[in-house]
C-alpha cells in the first residue's frame, strides 16, 4: 500500500512538471553557449585592442568603422552559434526523456524569451544608429537577464538567479564602460559555463 502511495505521488509530480515546465533544457546547452561567449568576448577584446570605446560616438575616428562592423558581425555570429549549440543539446535531451519538442510549453517559453530579447534587439539598433557603442555590452546583458527572469517560471527556477546575475553584470558594464567587454565575457562566458555545470549535475 505504501509503495503505491509513493508511486502515485511521484507520478503526480512528474506529470505536473512534464506538462507545465520545459525540462528539456540541458546543462550542456549552457556550457556550450558559455564557451562560445567566452571566445567571442576574448576575440572582441583583442579586436578592439587599445582603441578606446567611448560613449560619445563622434570621438571614434572614421577608420574604426570597420572595427565596429567586425564587432557587430562577431556578435551576430556568436549569437547564432550559441542558439544552435543550445538547441542541439536541448533537442537531444528531450529525445532522451521521451518528450515531444514542439509542445505548448515550448511555445510559451519561446514567446516569453522573445519579448524582452526583441525589445533589447531594437534598443541595440538604436544605440548603433547613434554610435553609442560603449553601451552595447551592458545593454545586451541587462535584456538577456530580463528574458531569463521572464522565462524562469516555465522552466528550471535556477534560471532566475542566472538572470539576476546577468542584470547585475550589465549594470556594472554600463557604469564602467571601459571594462564593458570584460563584464560581457564574464556574463555570457563564465556564468553560462558555471550555470551549465550546476544544471547538468542537478538534473541530468
Amino acid at each position, binding site marked *: 500500500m505504501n509503495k503505491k502511495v509513493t508511486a502515485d505521488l511521484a507520478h503526480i509530480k512528474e*506529470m505536473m512538471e512534464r*506538462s507545465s515546465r520545459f525540462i528539456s533544457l540541458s546543462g550542456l546547452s549552457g556550457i556550450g553557449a558559455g564557451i562560445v561567449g567566452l571566445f567571442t568576448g576574448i576575440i572582441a577584446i583583442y579586436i578592439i585592442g587599445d582603441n578606446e570605446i567611448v560613449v560619445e560616438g563622434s570621438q571614434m575616428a572614421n577608420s574604426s568603422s570597420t572595427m565596429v562592423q567586425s564587432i557587430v558581425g562577431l556578435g551576430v555570429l556568436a549569437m547564432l552559434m550559441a542558439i544552435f549549440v543550445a538547441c542541439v543539446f536541448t533537442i537531444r535531451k528531450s529525445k532522451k526523456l521521451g518528450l515531444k519538442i514542439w509542445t505548448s510549453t515550448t511555445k510559451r517559453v519561446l514567446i516569453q524569451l522573445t519579448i524582452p530579447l526583441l525589445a533589447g534587439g531594437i534598443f541595440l539598433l538604436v544605440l548603433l544608429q547613434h554610435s553609442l557603442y560603449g553601451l552595447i555590452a551592458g545593454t545586451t546583458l541587462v535584456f538577456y537577464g530580463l528574458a531569463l527572469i521572464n522565462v524562469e517560471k516555465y522552466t528550471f527556477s535556477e534560471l532566475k538567479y542566472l538572470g539576476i546575475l546577468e542584470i547585475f553584470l550589465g549594470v556594472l558594464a554600463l557604469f564602467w564602460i571601459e571594462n564593458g567587454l570584460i563584464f560581457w565575457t564574464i556574463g555570457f562566458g563564465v556564468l553560462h559555463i558555471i550555470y551549465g555545470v550546476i544544471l547538468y549535475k542537478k538534473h541530468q
Partner: protein
Amino acid sequence: MSIIGGLNKDFESRVRLGLMSVLMVNDWIDFTEMKNLLKVTDGNLASHSSALEKKEFIEIKKEFIAKKPKTSYRITIKGRKAFQQHLDALEKMMRG
C-alpha cells in the same frame, strides 16, 4: 461510497491520476498533447476522460478547427477540489 480515508476511487488508475495532474497545472489541453504526455492510446484516453467527465471532474470541449475536429480538456472546480482532497490524503498516508 467511493471515498475511503480521503482517497478517491475515481483517481485510482494511472491514466486518470496523470490526466488530473496535468489539468491541475494547465488550462485547456488538447487531445494529442494529453495523449503524448500520458503515453496512452486514443481509446484509452477517450474512455478515461469520458468517465471523468461523467463525474463532472473535467470539461470536454469539442470544436472544429480548419475542418478538423479538436477535443480539449479542462478541470472543473469540482474536479480540482476532489483531486486536491485525493492528493492531501496521499500525502497524509505518506507521512503517517
